[in-house]
Structure formats: C-alpha cells, structure tokens
C-alpha cells in the first residue's frame, strides 16, 4: 500500500495520547494498598498470617502461570486474587489447603472463563467458597489473637490431603459468638481488630484506609463500598430498633468480613456492574443479603455468599441500568 517514506513513523489509532493509567498499574496499586492490611494481619496473628497469605498467593500465581495467557502474571491480577483469598482464611489453615484454594480460584474462577476480565464471579471468593465447602472445619477454626510472633497458630504444615491436628488455642468469631452462644463482643476490639477471625478481616480501620487511598486515586469506585456499608448500617439499625436482641449497626459493620468484602471484594471491577446506577443496585443488594444471611440464615457470616450471589446478577444489572443515551428521552435497553 503506502510506501513508507519515513520508516520511523508509527501509526496508531486515535486518540494518540497516552492515557495516565494502565490495567497493570491499577492492579499493582491494589496490591500495594493491601500491604498495610497484611502487616496488620501479621501484627495480630504473627508469622502464621504471612504464611497463609503467601501460600494462597503461591497457589493463585502457579495456576495463572499454568493456565493463563503468556505473560498474564505481569498484570498483577492473579497476585490480587491470591492475596485477597489468603486474607480471608484463618491463621491456622493448613498451607496445602490455602495453595489449593488459590489454584482453584484462578483455575475455575478465572482461567476457564478466558482469563482477566472475562469471569463473572470474583475468583478469590470462588476459591474461598470452595474451601468453605470442602474443608468446613479447618476454615472455621479461628486461632486466638496474640502469642509470640513466631508461634504457629495451628497445624500449618499438615501434609496434603491430611487433616490438621489442631493444638492451638482457638476462639469463636464475634458473629459466631453472637449466633451460637448469644454473646456480644466489645466494639473497641472489633474496630481495632484484636479478635477472632480471618487473618485480614479484623483490622477494619486499616482496610478502610486502603479503600480511601484507592478511591482517591480512582482505582475503585466509591459507590460500591459506600452503598454496601450504608445498607448494612441502615437495615441492621432498623432491625435492632425493632428487636433489640438483633445485633446493632456498629457490630454488624465491624464484625466478620464486611469491611474486607465491601472495600476489596465487591469492588473488583471485573465482577461488579459497569454503570454507576448498577453499582448502587449491586451494593444495596449485597448489603441486604449480608444482613439477611447473618440474621436469618444458618451461617454466622454471609459476606462471601452475598457478593457471589450478586456477581451472578451483574449481567442482569448491567442490562437493566444502561445509561440514557444523549438526545434520547427514555432509558433505552436494547
């Protein structure tokens, strides 16, 4: 065709300016914002927390390396999946289970769908839901906070396919205490995070700080966490006012995995709605489901299932909340 008179010239499609952000950059920023959360986890649960998070990340990264497209590790999304999964596990989880969970999350939550951007369910939560279903006892055995930094919190090095021989002191989560034994927990310990739970879900304030950082840099959409937290607060507040035996709003907000879920899980761009209206719908849906499962369900905690369920609805929400096109008077859904 055109004889190129200046071979140095590149011809790209318009617009020709380089945008400020790139997908890997967003992903690695999320990873960076998780560093304080991991540090807090290490503070509360010692080296066990680091080992569990590292194991889950290893599983995710290995699976991405095995099944992903060439070089897809560099975009950082597999690392996020692994880290987030690790943060939702108890500190005493045998490492082989964590590795398996990470690999499952990437393999069946992402790679089989076609890799980054193609999946419908949050891969970290797919991995966790698998672990929850596969090893229900191990994943609900919560070691107590404290002890020496290098004290292992459980039978971390149980051999693959064997179940852990638990020797560590365990405690129930605040939600479990409330649901099964009718005991309330002190709000201060909930906010600070020195309580039973998954390694990364206890330090609510650190998680919130990470969320604010990401929201300010436009790496997460603030509507999602805000709508989830507001819905949970409002709904549980109303329920508490009607029936004081039901947990109150601050307890609901700072117990369990709500903060981690609202800030890091529900905001996964790939698996949340693409429209702003849809994001409100999604967040409110997650909030309602969390309260419903926690208050009326059989399980003490429901953040994971609430988000997975809403993930399944995202294609619907996206269809139903198409923006009104400029110059048209009605919402047009094709």
């Amino acid at each position, binding site marked *: 065709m055109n004889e190129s008179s200046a071979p140095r010239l590149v011809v790209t499609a318009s617009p020709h300016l380089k945008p400020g952000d790139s997908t890997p950059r967003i992903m690695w920023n999320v990873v960076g914002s998780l560093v304080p959360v991991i540090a807090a986890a290490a503070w509360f649960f010692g080296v066990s927390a680091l080992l569990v998070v590292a194991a889950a990340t290893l599983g995710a990264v290995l699976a991405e390396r095995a099944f992903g497209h060439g070089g897809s590790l560099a975009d950082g999304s597999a690392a996020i999946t692994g880290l987030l999964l690790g943060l939702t596990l108890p500190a005493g989880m045998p490492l082989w289970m964590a590795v398996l969970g990470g690999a499952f999350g990437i393999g069946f939550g992402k790679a089989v769908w076609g890799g980054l951007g193609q999946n419908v369910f949050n891969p970290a939560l797919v991995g966790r839901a*698998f672990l929850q279903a*596969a*090893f229900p006892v191990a994943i609900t055995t919560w070691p107590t906070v404290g002890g020496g930094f290098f004290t292992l919190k459980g039978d971390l090095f149980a051999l693959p396919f064997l179940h852990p021989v638990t020797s560590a002191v365990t405690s129930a989560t605040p939600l479990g205490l409330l649901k099964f034994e009718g005991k309330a927990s002190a709000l201060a310990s909930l906010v600070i995070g020195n309580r039973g739970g998954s390694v990364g879900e206890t330090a609510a304030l650190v998680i919130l700080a990470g969320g604010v950082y990401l929201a300010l840099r436009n790496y997460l959409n603030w509507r999602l966490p805000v709508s989830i937290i507001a819905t949970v607060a409002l709904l549980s507040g109303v329920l508490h006012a009607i029936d004081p035996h039901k947990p109150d709003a601050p307890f609901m907000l700072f117990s369990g995995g709500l903060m981690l879920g609202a800030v890091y899980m529900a905001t996964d761009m790939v698996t949340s709605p693409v429209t702003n209206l849809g994001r409100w719908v999604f967040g409110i849906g997650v909030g309602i489901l969390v309260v419903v499962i926690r208050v009326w369900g059989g399980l003490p905690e429901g953040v994971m299932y609430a988000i997975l369920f809403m993930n399944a609805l995202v294609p619907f929400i996206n269809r139903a909340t198409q923006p009104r096109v400029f110059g048209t008077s009605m919402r047009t859904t094709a």
Partner: protein
Amino acid sequence: MTAVPVPGLVSAPPSSAPALVPGAPPPATVFADVWRGIGRENPVLVQFLGMCPTMAVTNVLANGLAMGIATTFVLVGSGLFVSLFRKYIANEVRITSYILIIATFVTLADMLLAATFPDISKALGPFIPLIVANCLLLGRAEAFAAKVPVYRAVADGFGMGAGFTLSLCLLSTIREVLGKGSILGHDLFGPRFEPWVFMMMPPGGFLTLGIALLGLAWVMELRKRRALVTA
C-alpha cells in the same frame, strides 16, 4: 426429549444404504450397537442426556452404580417392548405408549430395588421414579427402538445403559474418593485423610462433570492437534 436443543446432540448418521424402514438407522453389527452407546454417543459425556440423575446420585459409587443399573434395566426393557410392538403402535399414540412402557419398567425397577437394597433405594429416593423423565429413554425409544428389530433395540439399550452406567461410575468414583476418602464404603486413606466435603455437595456434582468434560475436550484437542501435525 429429542426436541431439546441440547448442544452437541449427535444426530443419527446419514443412511447411505437403502433402509427397510423409512428413517431407520443403517444396519450395523450388534457389537457396534452396543459400543456406540459407550463411546461415540455416550449419553452423559457426549449427548448431555439424563443430567439430573447424573448429578443427583453420583455422590457415592454405590448410588451411581445402582442408578446406572436401574436405568439400563429400563432402557433394555422398554427397548425390547417398544421394538416388539412397533408394528402395532399407531403413530398418533406412540409417545403415550412409550411413556407408558417406560413408566412401567421404572415402577418395576423401583419396587425391585426397594425389595432388595432398601438402603440404596432410600438414598436414591425419588430419583428412581424420575428415570421416567430422563430424556435418554424416550429419545432412544423414539429414535432407535421403534425402528429396528428386537435384538438391535436390546443391544442399543444395553450399550446406552452401559455408557450411562460407566459415566456415572466415573463421576461417583471421583466424588466418593475425594469426598469421603473411600470407595464403595471401603476406607482408602486412613483416619488422617481430610475429605473434600465440597465433592459431596451440589456444586461438587456440577464441577466433577465439568472437569470430566474439560478433560475430555482437552484430550480431543490434543488428538486433533496431533492429527494436524502428522497430516
């Protein structure tokens, strides 16, 4: 039923030789009739028929095996009767008649199982009577048994049943070994084995078949690639 647009539903091979009955499958050996159901037209892995029992009862091998045998019994029995009476069943009432024949054999299977293996019968619950609604049965009656001599209908029923049973056994073995650490109730790995409860639950059922299909597709893909290389 055959009208369900199941992806990958294998249509009957085009008949080249003049058939005796219009629309009848081409002549084949009894061995080919049996083998087709196990391999190329495997009801579960290739045609995706009879999914409900495939998932619902394959949590342990004993259940899968029992379901497979019961289904084979109904397939052979209904194939036999449909083929036997194919000249007498008027076209207008053929579906009703087939359903009647199938339902009869299902009832027989249900009662026989309850009389002989009450535990398995209890575990399978309504899934034995639900064989009636298995698309595989009406599909075979309509597409095959009604058009061929008795010995071929029986061979086909047996082949389809065997393919169904083998698939169920494959899935239930995976699920029982991982989900309970045992096979047919016999402990395999000793007391420290951590069972994957997931495999015993509904998502595990879907996933096991998914993994089986992914593996099958992968093998096919490799074979295709190798064929390309050698060609």
